């Protein structure tokens, strides 16, 4: 027993020494987690998880970073090996319905989207991009290796860097979407493994795939960018944000009752915060519920917080998971929200897109952008990336608002090259107040080579979502001091001016049918021609080469015996 105790003490001392060496050896890193819950007026509920790791280190140094603590090693190695300045990747299942749900805190298009800013010291951007997509496909268990030059574009004005940096040469930007990419548990598993606490402690305990994928909208994303360390912004630190947005449907997950709880949504309750997190909070949006008239929140919490997000000042009830008192006597937290939220404001900007026309030869793409502000107009930047097999006729491009022609102040068009590049169309359009702007474009469908069809060609071919970036006028003044401590959900897009905020809206992806050949025809043709050739050639050959010979009928048995006897006698036969 004495020896045992000594062993234990020695082991503990060793561990402590190791930890101490680690703590003071490297740059400090910090982890925060938060969950925002917003009841929607249709009865659905919107939850948004954000996990942020900040690390003061320099991946671009000569000496490689060797010790990782909270920052995941796989992503750190990706950043240093491929000279990445910013990386944004998202996987989404479902489409965000702006008219019913309002604006999301973090927008994302259906399928997979990847956009990367490389460092300006990189010489071969295209080669590095191809390698990066392959490596990311292994990390996230997704088919990102299908990203190649046929679906990558280089936007010339959209997708400015979200982190700090002075260089904005768009030669180092690449953007690609895979609208057909499926999101399932195999993408969530490696995503959860990137978190410092994994899915064992903290808010990530709630992430159970059976409930998360039984929802109207599910989006998980990873955003890496350099940010300011402090107010002076002389040094930078790397920020890794992992976000997960889910919208639970009232009828599917809620069984039709206007009563939501953590257990009902996630089949789990919270018991502790992540031990390495410096802050772990839950925010419930109660702006429309100041007196408790719309919905009821239990257990009650005295903490309140206000934040300016999406151009509006919202009030939140806060649950701080680092305080033991939040968990109460049961040592577990199961939030209960009973009731419905009130009507929400109409979103100021939203967009739709559809394909018009009939037949399998031509068609027309219509994009509608709605400006619902009563008296302010604002500019939007529309980015369209159309695959090469839809041949766009740019001379038929029309932009109309309120029936009149609306000339864009900036157009950038890069035509496609068959099997090499997609179309890229970027336009800066000023949307007049309270109007609908319609952009129409005619196209023709191409005939693919028979090996280019997927194994299920009748499903159709996807055209990625259009991206609409805009500075929308805000109701309250935005906070332009980007380095102050703010809740994570309000500090994603940096704001430069107080009167407007930046928003990105994605339209629906399109599904178009290309003229599909009948793949059984080669077999049919071979059978038919072989039969025709065999019958025709065979008959001709017989006619040409067959010669007729006269043949005596064979005599009867008696005559044959007589002939044999006559032969023996030497007499000619009968």
């Amino acid at each position, binding site marked *: 027993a004495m020896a045992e105790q000594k062993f234990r003490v020695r082991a503990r001392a060793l561990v402590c020494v190791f930890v101490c060496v680690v703590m003071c050896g490297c740059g400090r890193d910090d982890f925060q987690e938060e969950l925002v819950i917003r009841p929607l007026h249709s009865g659905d509920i919107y939850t948004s998880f954000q996990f942020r790791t900040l690390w003061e280190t320099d991946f671009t140094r000569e000496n490689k970073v060797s*010790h990782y603590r909270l920052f995941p090693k796989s992503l750190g190695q990706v950043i240093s090996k491929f000279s990445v300045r910013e990386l944004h990747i998202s996987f989404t299942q479902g489409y965000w319905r702006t008219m019913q749900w309002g604006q999301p805190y973090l927008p994302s298009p259906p399928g997979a989207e990847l956009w990367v800013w490389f460092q300006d010291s990189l010489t071969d951007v295209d080669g590095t991009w191809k390698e990066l997509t392959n490596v990311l496909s292994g990390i996230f268990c997704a*088919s990102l290796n299908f990203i190649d030059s046929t679906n990558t574009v280089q936007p010339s004005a959209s997708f*400015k860097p979200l982190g700090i940096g002075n260089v904005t040469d768009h030669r180092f930007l690449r953007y690609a979407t895979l609208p057909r990419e499926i999101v399932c*548990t195999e993408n969530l598993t490696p995503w959860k493994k990137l978190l410092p606490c994994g899915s064992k402690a903290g808010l990530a305990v709630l992430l159970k*795939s059976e409930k998360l994928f039984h929802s109207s909208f599910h989006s998980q994303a990873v955003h890496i960018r350099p940010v300011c360390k402090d107010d002076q912004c002389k040094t930078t630190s790397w920020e890794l944000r992992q976000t997960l947005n889910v919208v639970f449907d009232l009828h599917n997950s809620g069984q039709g009752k206007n009563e939501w709880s953590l257990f009902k949504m996630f089949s789990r309750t919270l018991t502790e915060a992540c031990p390495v997190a410096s802050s772990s909070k839950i925010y419930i949006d109660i702006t429309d519920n100041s007196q408790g008239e719309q919905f009821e929140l239990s257990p009650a919490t005295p903490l309140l917080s206000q934040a300016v997000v999406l151009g509006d000042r919202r009030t939140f009830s806060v649950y701080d998971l680092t305080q033991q008192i939040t968990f109460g006597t049961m040592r577990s937290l199961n939030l209960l929200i009973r009731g419905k939220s009130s009507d929400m404001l109409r979103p100021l900007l939203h967009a739709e897109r559809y394909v018009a026309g009939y037949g399998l030869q031509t068609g027309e793409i219509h994009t509608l952008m709605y400006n619902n502000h009563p008296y302010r107009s604002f500019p939007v930047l529309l980015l369209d990336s159309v695959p090469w097999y839809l041949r766009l006729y740019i001379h038929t491009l029309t932009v109309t608002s309120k029936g009149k022609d609306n000339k864009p102040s900036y157009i950038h068009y890069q035509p496609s090259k068959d099997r090499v590049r997609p179309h890229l169309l970027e336009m800066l359009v000023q949307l007049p107040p309270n109007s609908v702007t319609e952009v129409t474009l005619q196209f023709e469908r191409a005939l693919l080579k028979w090996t280019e069809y997927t194994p299920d060609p009748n499903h159709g071919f996807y055209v990625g979502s259009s991206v609409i970036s*805009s500075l929308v006028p805000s109701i309250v003044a935005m906070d332009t001091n980007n380095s102050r401590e703010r809740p994570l959900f309000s500090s994603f897009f940096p704001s430069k001016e107080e009167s407007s905020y930046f928003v990105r809206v994605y339209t629906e992806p399109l599904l178009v049918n290309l003229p599909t050949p009948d793949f059984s025809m080669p077999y049919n043709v071979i059978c038919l021609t072989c039969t025709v050739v065999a019958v025709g050639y065979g008959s001709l050959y017989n006619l040409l080469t067959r010669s007729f010979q006269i043949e005596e009928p064979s005599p009867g048995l008696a005559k044959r015996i007589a002939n044999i006897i006559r032969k023996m006698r030497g007499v000619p036969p009968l």
Partner: protein
Amino acid sequence: MYFLLVYMYIKNHVYMFPDLLGCHGKCRRYLFCCFQDRAGQFFSSGHTNNWAVLVCTSRFWFNYRHVANTLSVYRSVKRLGIPDSHIVLMLADDMACNHRNPKPATVFSHKNMELNVYGDDVEVDYRGYEVTVENFLRILTGRLPPSTPRSKRLLSDDRSNILIYLTGHGGNGFLKFQDSEEISNVELADAFEQMWQKRRYNELLFIIDTCQGASMYERFYSPNLMALASSQVGEDSLSHQPDLAIGVHLMDRYTFYLLEFLEDIHPASKTNMNDLFKVCPKSQCVSTPGHRTDLFLRDPGSVLITDFFGSVRKVELTMETINLTDPIDAESGELQKEMHTYADQLPVSEIIHQKPKQKDWHPPDGFILGLWTLILLVFFQTYGVKHLKHIF
């Protein structure tokens, strides 16, 4: 890992266990050497690591059972110890998050939704359109492009035992991949021969659950291969039972009984291959499962199930010390003089007055060159070559 912990524990408490391991007097002091002799007996087979390549080749919702087959084997293999980094899982279509699935993120193998074989921490390496004959053969032979990530490679060596499981729709001598291509038994046999010549496996167990599955292993000719199939040539493999809520057949019979058999195996069990050959007799399977062991050097009765389905962790005992290098200190970088700022997300005036991008200069392509050659040719033909000296 398990053995290492046990060893550490015993080493510290050696005085408490006299003669436990049959160690005699003087050996008790030198416990290390004694344990090593005993340890040698634990690791008597020739392999040091295990790999698994599990492939489902069918697409579309009505082929749900093929995905469920593959995931059941995946689940067993993971449960018995093979880690995700040593499993290459290829699923040709997504059933769990398919919009037709009434219970998303689940794939069931038993009716009434008793067992969810999809689980909560599955990692699929090749999915959807990536499951092709070319990718499958490239994984086996190791000829992958250099940028392929590790999780998509079969990094086996000459001491690896590999389990290969294929399921889908097949026929006499071929297996259909995704409704558009096939792999033949000759190609497969050649791929295994390539693996043998490149020393990529120690022993290989090949299981196939398709119609006429036995035709796929007829052409094997490399040593150390053992093969099992769910049906003979001329027979169809049948599916097990439909689930009325999901609306499709959930599993194939052979793999259903194989899963039941594997559920009873645990990492330390001693069941051998002869028991595996008896899985799913004709009375249960309707088809006749077959097997082929003539290329295998060891007697199947001495081969443990866990040699292929489980994972061996070989423990090497060493007395060397290893010096850990200090982590590289993050030197505080030179203080930047200028202040960094966030970029403007939509700088309207900048965009409007943007200069057009300088295009990279490309040499003139064939058409332009041909056109100019034609013009020059016609010119000199018309006016004669003697005018050249006037021009130059």
